[in-house]
């Protein structure tokens, strides 16, 4: 079979571009590896952010399936009294709940069940009570909401079943003795349900307080339940626990013909006033069940945003450095007949290939790491099963490509369009002249003179360095600014503390990744600067600059952008915090931000000291003899 000529030509061209790009990557493996690692950091975090949300759905859906979870939970509260929130003592309108079971779309129901607030005291924790909601259930299995027992048996007289996440948090197991409002009960079982989100976000059937600080809790009225747990008892026990058995909330669980129509059902039958039941759809319970994951997702998306910016800055620095090195290669390619399009394709292909590989690695790492970071709550059934949706794959690959292409497109096209003679003579990347820096520097001590002139030679590299440091510093600044809030939440305990405790390691990993990338970036930029200024440094030394002065100049040329970037990172970090958190506390004192800036600058100084020292001590004669003007 003979292939058409155009196809042979195209395939040949693609193979040529691929081969040239691969060889160039192999020529500088360290840079290629750094490029890969940088983009992988961003794609992994982004992958985690995108798939972590999907992870929680699986355990909840498993639980829903296993427990015949309701599509709608209806709650009828007793008529309100004159004091807001307090019942009037009038009987609850149970008939209003029962009317819902007659609705066309309802295929099955269970209840209404009486619900009461109570104080639970576990054995061995005398005097330490926690709020719970008790629901009075039949001793026989219901058609809708059959809590799945993970331990023990179902409710019986004086035998209660405790929601699994609540039991886990309080260390209660089957056989323990507890008291509810002072009455003794045995723990008959531990169970999970899809009719309520797991503790500490249990779905509330009366007035409840969540995420409150100790100060806020002290102001909460006594009839409001504080982050209550969920306990199932028999109907008679529930009535026995209520202060006014006729005037207590009732709960009804409904299954609809089409669960996806749950919201429409609520719109049709939803509450207009206190005379009709309050309705809650299963999607809301799912949403509440995933609050940990929501926080994690926010952290990952934020982290991946920062890492993507960092990756872009790093890639730009690498590309600009490589392009300078590649100008002669571009000249050679053009001299042997390579068109500007072919040259641009070769240069872009390198970075696109690295970006695609980074996307693949990032997707894999994110997919593997996701379950470790989002292990399902003990209040739900089933293990998290991470999956990569086409959407996730598309977004991650797209971001990796965008990072690579944005950073490489302009230099690649410029190199491709440069004159062949200029490229061959290697003057395509002659240093820039920055008049004002040269003028100012002539009035400064030698290290600063050398530093400012070094900065003036490569202004674009300086901009990328500043951006990289600003992005890096904005992370810790946001952490410092938000620390007071985190600290408060940790001290307060409860659900937010759990969320913070769980997310802190993730935050730390992202920060560490950012800092590591910034460190590698700083060392790379310093090396690139040392190489780029080797001739200027050698001339300066021939004219009488000491190695120490040259080294100090090179180091200062890194520290000045680092200082600018670190200072920019302060408003950046504060802005980041405000953009991602609606509940920003008052900002910490100025010295804390100054300390972050100082630490960043000192770290950069330490990191760049070695390459800068080496740059100041390179053999002058060797360089002057190898660089012929």
């Amino acid at each position, binding site marked *: 079979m003979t292939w058409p000529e155009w196809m042979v030509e195209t395939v040949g061209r693609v193979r040529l571009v691929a081969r040239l790009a691969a060889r160039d990557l192999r020529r500088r493996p360290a840079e290629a590896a750094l490029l890969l690692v940088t983009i992988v950091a961003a794609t992994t975090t982004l992958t985690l952010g995108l798939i972590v949300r999907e992870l929680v759905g699986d355990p909840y859906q498993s639980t829903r399936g296993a427990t015949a979870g309701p599509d709608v939970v209806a709650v009828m509260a007793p008529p309100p009294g004159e004091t807001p929130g307090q019942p009037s003592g009038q009987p609850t309108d149970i008939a209003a709940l029962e009317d819902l079971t007659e609705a066309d779309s309802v295929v099955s129901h269970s209840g209404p069940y009486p619900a009461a607030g109570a104080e639970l005291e576990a054995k061995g924790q005398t005097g330490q009570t926690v709020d719970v909601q008790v629901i009075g259930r039949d001793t026989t299995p219901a058609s809708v909401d059959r809590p799945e027992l993970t331990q023990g048996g179902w409710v019986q007289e004086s035998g209660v079943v405790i929601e699994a996440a609540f039991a886990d948090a309080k260390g209660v197991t089957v056989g323990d003795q507890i008291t509810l409002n002072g009455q003794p009960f045995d723990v008959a079982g531990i169970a999970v349900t899809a009719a309520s989100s797991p503790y500490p976000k249990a779905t509330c059937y009366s007035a409840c307080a969540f995420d409150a600080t100790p100060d806020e809790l002290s102001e909460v009225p006594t009839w409001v339940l504080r982050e209550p747990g969920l306990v199932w008892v028999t109907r008679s026990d529930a009535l026995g626990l209520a202060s006014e058995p006729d005037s207590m909330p009732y709960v009804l669980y409904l299954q609809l013909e089409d669960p996806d129509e749950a919201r429409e059902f609520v719109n049709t039958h939803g509450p207009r006033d206190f005379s009709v039941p309050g309705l809650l759809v299963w999607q809301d319970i799912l949403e509440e069940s995933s609050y940990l994951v929501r926080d994690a997702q926010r952290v990952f998306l934020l982290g991946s945003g920062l890492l993507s910016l960092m990756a872009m800055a790093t890639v730009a620095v690498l590309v600009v450095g490589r392009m300078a090195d590649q100008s002669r290669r571009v000249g050679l390619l053009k001299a042997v007949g390579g068109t500007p399009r072919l040259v641009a394709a070769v240069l872009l292909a390198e970075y696109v290939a690295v970006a695609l590989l980074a996307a693949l690695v990032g997707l894999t790492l994110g997919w593997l790491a996701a379950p470790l970071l989002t292990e399902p709550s003990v209040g739900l059934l089933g293990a998290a099963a991470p999956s990569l949706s086409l959407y996730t794959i598309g977004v991650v690959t797209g971001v990796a490509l965008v990072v690579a292409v944005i950073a490489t497109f302009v230099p690649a096209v410029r190199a491709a369009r440069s004159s062949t003679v200029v490229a061959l003579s290697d003057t395509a990347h002659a240093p820039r002249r*920055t008049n004002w820096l*040269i003028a100012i520097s002539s009035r400064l001590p030698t290290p600063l003179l050398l530093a400012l002139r070094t900065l003036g030679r490569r202004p674009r590299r300086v901009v990328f360095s500043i951006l990289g440091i600003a992005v890096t510093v904005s992370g810790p600044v946001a952490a410092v600014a938000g620390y007071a809030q985190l600290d408060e939440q940790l001290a307060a305990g409860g659900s937010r503390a759990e969320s913070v405790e769980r997310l802190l390691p993730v935050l730390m990993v992202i920060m560490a990744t950012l800092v590591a990338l910034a460190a590698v970036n700083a060392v790379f930029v310093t090396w690139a600067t040392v190489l780029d200024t080797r001739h200027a440094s050698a001339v300066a*030394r021939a*004219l009488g*600059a000491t190695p120490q002065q040259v080294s100090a100049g090179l180091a200062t040329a890194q520290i000045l952008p680092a200082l600018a970037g670190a200072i920019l990172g302060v408003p950046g970090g504060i802005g980041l915090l405000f953009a991602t958190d609606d509940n920003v506390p008052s900002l910490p004192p100025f010295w804390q931000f100054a300390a972050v800036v100082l630490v960043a600058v000192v770290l950069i100084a330490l990191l760049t000291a070695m390459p800068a020292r080496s740059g100041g001590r390179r053999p002058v004669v060797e360089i002057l*003899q190898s660089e012929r*003007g």
Partner: protein
Amino acid sequence: MNNDTVLAARGLRKDYGKGEALVRAVDGVDLDASQGETVAVMGPSGCGKSTLLHILGGLDRPTDGEVWLADRRIDRLGERDLARMRRTDVGFVFQAFHLMDELTAVENVELSALLAGHAARVARRRATDLLERVGLADRAGFLPSALSGGQRQRVAIARALSNEPLVVLADEPTGNLDSASTLDVLQLFEDLHEAGQTLVVVTHDARIAATADRLITMRDGAFIDETRLTGGTTGRLGDLAGMDG
């Protein structure tokens, strides 16, 4: 060493490599350059001329031997002291000019003075004077890329003179220049000679060598011949070179 000796070397040796790969670039060289004297060193490529010049200027260190500059032994100085010495006592002129591409002619010339710690205004005034002296006052604001080879070398010579050094060391100063530019540079060296500047010039160019007070021939790292020329002391370098028009 005479009292008026500015630069001296004794038993200078420079080895590269070890064992069978050992190369002796400079082999037992003795040299004296007196105040105001022009010494030319000639020899084939690779004979060690440039290495000798680098050692004399403190850019490189000898394997053995001594280098004295103005009665101060410099071959044992640390890098910092060598750098300070280069700032004030030595001016280099390279074949490849080694100007900073991003600096104008006047900025290149004033750089030496700035590195020596002179005030910016003083350095600029001195650089402007020197550019006038080398005939480039009207090119002070030009970048090296806008100058001809001869003009670049004249800028480099002006830079070498910036701190009024004891000795100017020139490494193939006309090696990259055409005839007309070579004449310009020769004329400048003649002016320096007349002004009493001590010069050590390494060159392939017999015309430059012929203008020196002394001509040393070098081969395989050693001095094999030394000739005292009469013309050089008259200061008529251009005449001797046969390039006066």
